């Protein structure tokens, strides 16, 4: 079971989102970065699948050179190979991102002889949230693709996989033949903390860098803005246990107690 996981480097924004002066991007100068939470679960799931069924885990990202940091995070969790498609700073539109991923997968398959039984994505990226990159890549590669997945069950003898996903009305289970793709969601598992050994290994690991040419699509971002936020000043009800009376007064006023 060789698993490919596509991850995105996203900023860990704090309590307010600051924008760059030209209003085109989130100001990330004072922010840390992380693998998107959905994708972190995808990495964890891939590592568990490879441990249970044999095979290798490859993580792939499209982004700036600094995204190597997130690839090393995935390596330190236990991924075997890491591939960076360096598209420089600045955000790509979702079609261009998908195109870059597809070209990278083809290069890995045709030139490096890689074969992937499963391709996992986060259901949507944590920053841009276009809800389509994984679907586009899967389509182009001719793979079936289910989104919102929070449970994976492999039947290697039958060559099938079952995807479990919660929906408003309950739970749905889909079955696909392998090879297959899925967009997974946080809650699929509890991602591990990397071990010290994992971190050391990741530090020394070689990251493959690929180059691709992509063109912008018909969806062009013209700017970002923050919506106006109106909240009246906070009413402080008191401090410590002594505030209980005032709190219950409010609960009764709201008709909930």
């Amino acid at each position, binding site marked *: 079971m060789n698993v490919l996981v596509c991850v995105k480097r996203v900023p860990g924004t704090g309590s307010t*989102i600051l924008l760059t002066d030209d209003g085109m991007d989130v100001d990330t100068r004072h922010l840390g970065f992380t693998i998107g939470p959905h994708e972190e679960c995808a990495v964890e799931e891939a590592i568990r699948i490879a441990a249970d069924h044999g095979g290798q885990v490859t993580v792939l990202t499209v982004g700036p050179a600094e995204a190597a940091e997130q690839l090393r995070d995935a390596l330190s969790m236990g991924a075997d190979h890491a591939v960076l498609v360096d598209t420089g700073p600045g955000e790509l539109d979702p079609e261009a991102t998908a195109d870059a991923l597809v070209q990278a997968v083809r290069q890995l398959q045709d030139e490096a002889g890689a074969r992937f039984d499963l391709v996992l994505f986060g259901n949507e990226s944590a920053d841009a949230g276009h809800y389509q990159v994984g*679907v586009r890549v899967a389509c182009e590669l001719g793979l079936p693709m289910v989104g919102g997945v929070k449970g994976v069950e492999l039947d290697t003898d039958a060559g099938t996989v079952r995807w479990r996903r919660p929906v408003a009305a309950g739970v749905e289970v889909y079955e696909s033949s392998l090879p297959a793709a899925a967009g997974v969601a946080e*809650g699929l598992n509890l991602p591990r903390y990397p071990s010290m050994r994992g971190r050391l290994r990741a530090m020394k690991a070689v990251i493959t860098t690929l180059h691709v040419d992509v063109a912008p699509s018909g969806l062009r971002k013209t700017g970002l803005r923050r*919506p106006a936020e109106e909240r009246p000043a906070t009413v402080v009800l*008191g401090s410590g246990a002594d505030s209980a009376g005032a709190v219950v007064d409010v609960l009764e006023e709201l008709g909930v107690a």
Partner: protein
Amino acid sequence: MSVFTIIEHDDGVVPAACLQALTIAGELAAGDTVEAVVFGPDPGLGSVLAANGVTTLHVVDHELVTDYSPEIYGESLAQLLKQAGPAGVVAAGTDRGNEIMAQAAARSRLPLATNCVAVTADPGAWTLTRARVGGLLLEDAELTASTKLVTVVPGPGDDVSASPGASGLLTQTFVPDLAADFVHSRLVERTERGSGVTLATARVVVSGGRGVGSSEGFAPLEELADLLGGAVGCSRVATSNGWRPHSDQVGQTGTKVSPELYIACGISGATQHWVGCMGAKTILAINTDPEAPMVTRATYAVTGDVHEVVPAVVAEIRRRADIRAGRRPALA
């Protein structure tokens, strides 16, 4: 040129989100026709759709179009768009709406703008605003394509039931060309959620974060939620520490809640948590830090340790209930 919209329906009930998408399709059509697409046999949607300005209903009919399948629905839509060539398609930004549109966009090699909060048709392009991070950030964008695909963020509203009867709607059956071995995912099992208070629909949510400190620390929060007929929620710190299941997580990658009252216990109020609870009518923050963003954005706040405040509130509710019931309150 006409604008299409997709109607997801559950046994003839049209969700509010689809009617909202239909309304926006009508605005964008600006006098041209609005045409609806349904998958599988028409459950009698004619009069509801006609009342909302739809002139033509495209019924996608094929032996493979029975249960939902992302690839089959997406491929069918892509084929219909190729044949009909509408100016655009507006669908609801639901999980399923986004999934069908992404599949159709990929197969048609067309751009797609998801989760829009505003769309206007300008000559040549559609100008739109997308919600990012649950609406905490807005992206302005331009969409240029032969057929423009957008999904719109669902707002509050009521679902509408189909009512049979004449509607004057033109119904056209569309039979997609799908090979018997068309690559797709098959729905093999569906379980309905049981009734009961869920996080998403609860009137009161008592939510805990790092300040709660442990899984045992949630016991008083559960007690309070019980007394108020509410549900327990939590921050990502609580789920990633294994104190609570992920299904309790409120936020960008958890559940978005909109209760009458949200009680945030030991939660700082990071943007990714805030987007999940900002829909609450009233927020009460309990936090040791009076400067925490959750406190400064809350309607009400108590400064203090959750381990002292929550049990005291529980005791006070019990004391008042006892008095109302004519019992002698237990001594504190």
